[in-house]
């Protein structure tokens, strides 16, 4: 190992150390690429995580279309629709926060992040009222489940999947808001520069993923058979 120390010193002499560069990476570029790939691989695991529940959903939707239509009508489409809009808006504000970080405007980053969190919390509050209503009606799966429709058994499967999917999604939202709080704090402290804003970008990817999950959950849970339901009501 001759010249080792010299080569080492020389190597680092070429570019100044960024405070965020960790020792085991050669450059900020490499560090950023590693983080990005790591985040994407993590999102893959998340897709598969939700995938198990979605598989159960698919099977029972194919098996019990009647029960699915009946149970889905009991969900509040207005609240569900508002929540969809809220989440899409939060995805937009998140993208804007990342953009502000890219262009080095700290104040904008902080503002967009706060707006994103506010929208995220709005979603959770609306979700809370939806859940509370379901508990009131005893439409929560378990020994006390009550259903006065035609398919009392399979409706319970629907609601098991409804609570499983939306509950898991809400958990991800809570984690996301917490994550954003930390990032906002870091942004307010001026930690990010156009050279290094990886945490903002990574939380953005996570936030968009959670939004995508909801983009699927909304039609899968709320919009199963609305047309038929309307027809029935009309008659």
């Amino acid at each position, binding site marked *: *190992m001759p*010249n*080792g*120390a010299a*080569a*080492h010193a020389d*190597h680092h002499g070429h570019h100044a150390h960024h405070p965020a560069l*960790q*020792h*085991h990476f*050669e450059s900020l570029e*490499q560090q950023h*690429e*590693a983080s990005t*790939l*790591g985040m994407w*691989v*993590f999102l*893959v*695991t*998340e897709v*598969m*995580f*939700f*995938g*198990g*529940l979605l*598989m*159960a959903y698919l*099977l*029972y939707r194919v*098996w*019990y279309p009647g*029960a699915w239509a009946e149970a889905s009508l009991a969900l509040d489409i207005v609240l569900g629709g508002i929540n969809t809009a809220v989440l899409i808006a939060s995805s937009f504000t998140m993208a804007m926060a990342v953009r502000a970080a890219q262009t080095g405007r700290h104040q904008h980053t902080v503002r967009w992040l706060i707006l994103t969190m506010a929208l995220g919390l709005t979603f959770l509050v609306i979700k809370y009222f939806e859940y509370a209503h379901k508990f009131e009606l005893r439409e929560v*799966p*378990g*020994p006390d*489940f009550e259903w006065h429709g035609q398919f009392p*058994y*399979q409706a*319970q*499967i629907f609601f*098991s*999947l409804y*609570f*499983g999917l939306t509950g898991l999604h809400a958990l991800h939202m809570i984690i996301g808001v917490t994550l954003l709080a930390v990032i906002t704090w870091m942004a307010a402290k001026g930690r990010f520069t156009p050279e290094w804003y990886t945490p903002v970008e990574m939380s953005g990817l996570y936030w968009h993923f959670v939004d995508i999950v909801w983009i699927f959950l909304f039609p899968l849970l709320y919009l199963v058979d609305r047309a038929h339901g309307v027809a029935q009501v009309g008659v």
Partner: protein
Amino acid sequence: MTTTVLPRVNYLNHEHGVASWLLTKDHKRIGILYLIVVAVAFFLGAIFAAGVRMELTTPQGDLVSADTYNKLFTAHGVMMVFFVLIPVVPAILGNFAMPLMIGAKDVAFPKLNLLSWYVFVIGFLFTIAALIFGGVDTGWTFYTPYSSTASNSNVMLTGLGVFIAGFSSILTGLNFMVTIHRMRAPGMTWFRLPLFVWAIYATALVQVLGTPVVAITVLMMALERALGFGIFDPRLGGDPVLFQHLFWFYSHPAVYIMILPPMGAISEVIACFSRKNVFGYSFVAFSSLAIAVFGFLVWAHHLFVAGISPYSAMVFSFLSFAVAIPSAVKTFNWTATLYQGAIWWRAPMMWVFGFIGLFLIGGLTGLFLASLGLDVHLHDTYFVVAHFHYIMVGGAIMGFLAGLHFWWPKMTGRMYSDGAATLSALLVFVGFNLTFGPQFILGYLGMPRRYHVYPDEYQVLNVLSSAGTSILGVGYTLTAVYLIYSLFRGERAGANPWLATGLEWNNTDSPPLPHNFSDLPVVSEGAYEYSKRGMKVA
């Protein structure tokens, strides 16, 4: 190779104290930490196995009750599958060797790597707690509706342990994938990567894609058990077989988490001790990826008699046969590597020979079970038990020990006794075959698994099997004894006691430096250029 001078600073001695280990972000130290926990888990799992075999020496249920027996084999399965076989090679040897082999200073996310270990330990402790509070009797597969409604044992606690440990596996896989993509040294192209790294990469794919599915499946089972959700509940119209589908979507590929990394270690050892390039390098490399991907297409062969559609079963049977192709590619290429090689008869190679023979038997009997008609006869018999032990113990554990004996001088800087290691490889090989060979016959004769009593005519073979277990136990104990002994009295190993190729042998000391290399390695040749270097051993 006798170096008397200890390297001044290495990863073991540059920091001291328990805290320096428990807070380490060094991939090499984390590998050692895994080794310790896995060794404990292996010891516990072996104790439970011994209990099972002791009960089965007599046809009557005279040692333990049926309930205790159920808990014994469940404890054995859970311990060995989730806390030994899944982490044994990726988390121990992968953590220790992979970053060294690709010329990286560390894995991409060192803190995450340490977190994975803590997550693993927490999962392990939950499982231990479940055992202390009375055990669990569902079998390691947690099939519904037994686990969700019928069993009154500690299903929740064990499920939680497995769920948590799963995240350790996911995070390790994620970390390794990013490391292999982004942290390779200059000149370390994909086709210069050692085959062990290819195997670790393929394993990481399975860990990342499969483990989340079993996590959510166990979670659904837990929701059903704890809160009365109805996803698999037949009383509501749910299908318990769906649980099996989702469970095996992970747990069949999990077999490849267990076997792919040992296969990678085998490729390293076989090249070094045959002094040859691995025959058909790119085929061996791609067969790892092929096994990982094909592994996701075959899971329902565990469900052939569970009431799935016979048409679907035909598809899965066909695909299961297809997995044999990449596995056979590997086996053929290893034997072709041996052909006309300068075979060096040292201990790691003994474990390799054991691996190839046992994996061959395990793999070929797998084809019996993939055949629809034969599976109806053999399903849930001791034939299945023998088959998967040949893969998991004969394959994975033998392969792990081959790799451990290969890298031990690098990990510790000490040599173990070659004679003792050879003897122990022989004992394990003999003991293993005596234990599980008779079980093929027992299964074929119709002895079902998971029963603690059996008809008298099965006794001779069962006694043989139990006798084999004791030889197996002696073999493993011997391994532990001389390896631990070598830590204190072992001869110092030089940087490269096996005259092997590879960055971990040629570009750093034994044990390696704290940050692996004193200067960044630059790679200019393939992984196994034994012939070019003229590295003939005496």
